[in-house]
């Protein structure tokens, strides 16, 4: 649980000097393989990527030219990139609130049950473990414009059919629906953990204070106590949605006509399809910068969460 992680961060910083009689060389030996990998697969590549973003390097060409902020200037003037950025944010704005609210709704409803809690948790968590690529193909068929079961259902109800991934209007929302489906159960479990931490006597106290309806108690007792968990779930969902890639790569390929171009997919094409490494690196820097902002918010939230408890 995230709660474990956060709490132990702030717990007593009293490193006992266990290794007093041992040479710290042992510690270096133990840490060495990880340090080596950390440098080789994380630190050095990130620095190289930042340097690369100031060049015009193309994979396969021998020349490499320093062009300063040229790539960045070009990016923000580029309609495709701006559209990808906009689509990504629009996608996050659909996925994060919906998956958080649905997760909360499920957790609260299940928590109030006297029977069948395990059964429902199992059902709603199942999509979390399913391979996204496989389920993306199922959804593609499910929402297919002519033969998809979803449209056959609409038709049988006398409604006009919807070509979700065929038109520009609904494609992004269709992808968002898949992500909400696969994320709600995850959020549900996080909320469920938060709910079990709400002390029972608080409800009794609230009832004595005259809060008769369940809904009143939910608003005045449960929700405030779930505040920190909620913040945490919002940030994690935002990060997950922001990294959308698989469904785009499998279902829409960024189409129709750019309607589902998102940041990671555009960057992938720029770097590994067109091999324009320089500008792909600049896109990655933008992506990483946004991720760092989220991470900073997350760290702040985690801090608050610890004090709250």
């Amino acid at each position: 649980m995230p709660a474990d992680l956060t709490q132990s961060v702030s717990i007593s910083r009293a490193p006992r000097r266990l290794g007093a009689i041992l040479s710290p060389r042992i510690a270096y030996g133990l840490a060495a393989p990880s340090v080596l990998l950390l440098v080789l697969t994380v630190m050095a590549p990130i620095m190289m990527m930042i340097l690369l973003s100031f060049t015009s390097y193309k994979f396969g060409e021998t020349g490499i030219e320093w062009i300063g902020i040229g790539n960045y200037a070009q990016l923000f003037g580029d309609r495709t990139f701006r559209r990808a950025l906009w689509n990504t944010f629009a996608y996050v704005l659909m996925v994060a609130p919906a998956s958080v609210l649905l997760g909360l709704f499920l957790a609260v409803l299940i928590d109030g049950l006297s029977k069948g809690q395990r059964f429902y948790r199992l059902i709603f968590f199942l999509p979390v473990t399913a391979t996204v690529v496989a389920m993306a193909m199922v959804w593609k068929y499910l929402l297919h414009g002519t033969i998809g079961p979803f449209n056959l259902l609409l038709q049988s109800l006398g409604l006009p059919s919807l070509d979700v991934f065929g038109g520009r209007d609904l494609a992004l929302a269709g992808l968002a629906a898949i992500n909400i489906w696969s994320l709600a159960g995850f959020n549900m479990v996080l909320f469920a953990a938060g709910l079990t931490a709400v002390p029972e006597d608080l409800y009794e106290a609230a009832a004595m204070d005259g809060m008769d309806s369940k809904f009143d108690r939910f608003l005045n007792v449960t929700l405030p106590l779930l505040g920190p968990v909620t913040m945490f779930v919002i940030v994690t969902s935002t990060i997950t949605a922001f990294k959308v890639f698989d469904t785009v790569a499998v279902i829409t390929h960024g189409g129709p006509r750019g309607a589902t171009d998102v940041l990671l997919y555009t960057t992938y094409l720029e770097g590994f399809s067109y091999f324009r490494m320089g500008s792909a690196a600049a896109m990655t820097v933008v992506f990483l910068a946004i991720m760092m902002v989220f991470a900073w918010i997350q760290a702040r939230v985690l801090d608050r969460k610890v004090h709250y408890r």
Partner: protein
Amino acid sequence: MNRPHRFRPGQILSHVILLFLAFLFMFPFYVMIVTSVRSPAELFVPEFRWLPESFTGLRYYIQAVADIPALTFLKNGVLISGGILIVQLLTAIPCAYALAKFEFRGRDLLFALVLFSLTVPIQAPALPLFLGLNAIGAIDTYFAAMVPFFLSVFAIFLFRQTFRTYPDEIIQAARLDGMSEWAILWTVVVPGCLPSVAAFSIFSVTAHWNDLYWPMVVIRSNDLMTPPLGLAFFADSESGANYGALMAMATILTAPLMIGFLLAQRHFIRGITMTGVK
């Protein structure tokens, strides 16, 4: 919160809502399985039927295994996610032990770097890693598919937290018995922290079994494709009408994790959600 509200109408209403949502949530799985056992002609009739008119049995499953190398993808999935997990455990556990139980110069810096790296997704170092692997001629190998994940800062972070709560007295006693630090770590400390190791293993295997991005960057040949990559590749190359075979293959490649989840629900839920940080 077990407030007394048995047999209230509220309970029944909750069940009605939840059952309806459960139906919606399960519907894609149902469609996947039913499509894999019905004849293609049925897909083009203008109404959805719940059960197949002509049951094709395991025909598409056999086709997926025989014509499309579904078994190869499964094997690659096992090799790659298994290989990643083993190296992750072998490197992260000693590092976490050092961070948790030793004082040495640079420890705080190392831990700060670990915390920073927690927020860095694979896409950030991807371009230089690709160039580096290309330079040493390693593109399109198992090694290329695994190497960016050999270091799991999440594992270091998690195991450090776990090891810190491990009693120092036991470690001291083992030292007095003359055991080497390496032996203490693997035969005393790690066996005492198995729940963490299990939870991390589930998280790691799930993440890498399902990953599409990195295999898409470095894998070219069919023989080395992981389940998601193989599936995506064949979805594109198939004429598109062969939904039966595609759904059969989707079922085969999703099955291992789903079965694992059904068998060990609690561990799975714990393993996957404990990593909300990632």
